[in-house]
């Protein structure tokens, strides 16, 4: 019996050496990659190629496509609305990533010091906005900020202070948006940072204790440097997300007042879907993509170099 099994096994092993088998193995990955690849080609690569092409042309979606060379880009560089949108988006990205990440780190660190059962409840609380639809968040905050009926103004008036035009005053609209954005992202970021904190092995802290570190120096010299990859991740994803932000400002202020909260994605949408200038919109999309790409690359490089000590 055992001999027969052994022979059988040997035969099987020999079988695996045949050309047929090797061919089968060689061809194996393709059916796995295929569905993704087809969808990728159709829904990503080809549209991107077409978009690049369109950025050198003008098209209103109905008539002919008119080739324009670099004209869209020259118009863009002189377009005050484009630069405005760029500026606004830059402010949003810079402010929210820096303040947001700092806040999230603080929150994560504090949470680690809290008893487990309480900490997990708190984590769920802070995480809620990240799972809520941007539309829902947008409309809640829109109501809270409402000049006549919103809660914030009711509160102010209750304290004897004058009510503010949160969403229609050109100096207040952007800060109002920033507050909402940071509020929405805190939980998510702090969760990721928590994961990062937990991956720091205890030995390092113990070693630190031997050297006589206290709370603050421990944080600054041990935790922070070792948190670099996590922080990098949070920053990079934050940058990519914020450069392309559309729904939140669109719902909260519609880009107003007078484009003080209009992001570049919103401007792109307007140009394409409201004015039907698909060529120009594609050109803007190209620039936006380039910016996101460069930003995340720079982020990556910067934090990486910091990490190499």
């Amino acid at each position, binding site marked *: 019996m055992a001999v027969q099994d052994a022979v059988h096994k040997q035969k099987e092993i020999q079988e*695996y050496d045949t050309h047929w088998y090797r061919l089968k193995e060689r061809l194996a990955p393709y059916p796995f990659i295929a569905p993704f*690849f087809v969808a990728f080609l159709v829904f990503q690569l080809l549209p991107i190629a077409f978009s690049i092409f369109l950025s050198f042309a003008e098209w209103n979606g109905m008539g002919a496509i008119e080739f324009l060379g670099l004209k869209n880009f020259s118009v863009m560089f002189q377009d005050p609305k484009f630069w405005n949108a760029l500026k606004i988006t830059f402010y949003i990205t810079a402010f929210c990533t820096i303040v947001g990440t700092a806040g999230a780190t603080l929150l994560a660190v504090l949470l680690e010091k809290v008893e487990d059962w*309480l900490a997990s409840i708190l984590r769920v609380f802070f*995480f809620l906005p990240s*799972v809520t639809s941007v*539309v829902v968040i947008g409309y809640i905050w829109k109501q809270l900020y409402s000049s006549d009926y919103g809660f914030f103004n009711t509160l102010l008036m209750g304290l004897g202070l004058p009510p503010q035009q949160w969403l229609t005053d050109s100096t207040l609209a952007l800060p109002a948006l920033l507050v909402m954005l940071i509020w929405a992202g805190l939980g998510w970021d702090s969760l990721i940072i928590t994961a990062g904190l937990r991956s720091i092995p205890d030995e390092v802290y113990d070693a630190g204790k031997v050297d006589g570190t206290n709370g603050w120096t421990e944080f600054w010299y041990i935790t922070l440097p070792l948190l670099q*990859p996590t922080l990098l991740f949070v920053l990079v994803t934050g940058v990519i997300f914020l450069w392309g932000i559309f729904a939140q400002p669109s719902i909260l202020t519609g880009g107003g007042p007078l484009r003080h909260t209009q992001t570049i994605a919103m401007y792109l949408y307007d140009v394409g879907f409201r004015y039907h200038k698909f060529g120009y919109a594609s050109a803007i999309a190209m620039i936006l993509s380039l910016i996101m790409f460069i930003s995340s690359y720079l982020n990556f490089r910067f934090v990486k170099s910091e990490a190499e000590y």
Partner: protein
Amino acid sequence: MNRRRKILGYGIGGFLFLFAMLYLFPYVWMTSMSFKADAEIFSGKVFPEHPTLEQYQRLFSGYQFKDITLTIPYLTYYKNTIIVTVFSMALVLFFDAMAAYGFAKFNFPGKTILFWLMIGTMLLPVYSTLIPSFWLFSVLKWINTYRALILPGVVDAYGIFLLKQYMETIPNELLDAAKVDGAGAFRRFWQIVVPLSRPAIATLAIFRFLFIWNDYLWPLVIIRDDTMYTLTLGIANMQLRQGMVVWGSQMAASVLATLPVLILVLVMQKQFLRGLTAGAFKA
């Protein structure tokens, strides 16, 4: 020493708890508005004096405005969102897992190029494909269909990346042993790799669910009439009727739309944290 830490812990915990209460105020607002009758909506008080289910009823039985009844097909919105989310998730998870397996466990010509191409497009905003995709769907006559909502989401480079990282940690010896036992590539995939990747797949499933359930931009572009609205579009468009006090129903609609997500998070919170820690993002 330990006692001191515990007291500090509770102290911080207490402080954070108070902060969390403030932090969650918008949700309190949302819920309390949803229970206010129209007359109370603009009262400026936080809690309703005479709570009512009026706003919720409106979502199902229509809105009386002047002398017409406007129906809000809320159930349709819910149905649409569920259909799109379920199908999308099934497809994405399946395709992602397969592709990740292909990348993780095999070598083939063009693998590196394809992989980097995929990563590169991950960094590109959806806007670069928005207009051509719109045009593509219009040519195919797929505007305003379920197809259009489900299919583009199938391309999920991020998910493949995540799963690939995870799958690479599965020891090859396990698969070689299976090979020797006569298992073909698919069998190895289905019976070994997938079960072992369950934590990562579950995490991915949660991410995709959240993304699709809450998606706004793509449905905005591709959906043309309100029988096909998803929940996010439906809530957004409740704003569009002039002269109507829609605040209340919007909040009611929001509460109902957020509930499934909330439940998911409560149930899956441990899973989430574990998934994020499981080498999912090691740069």
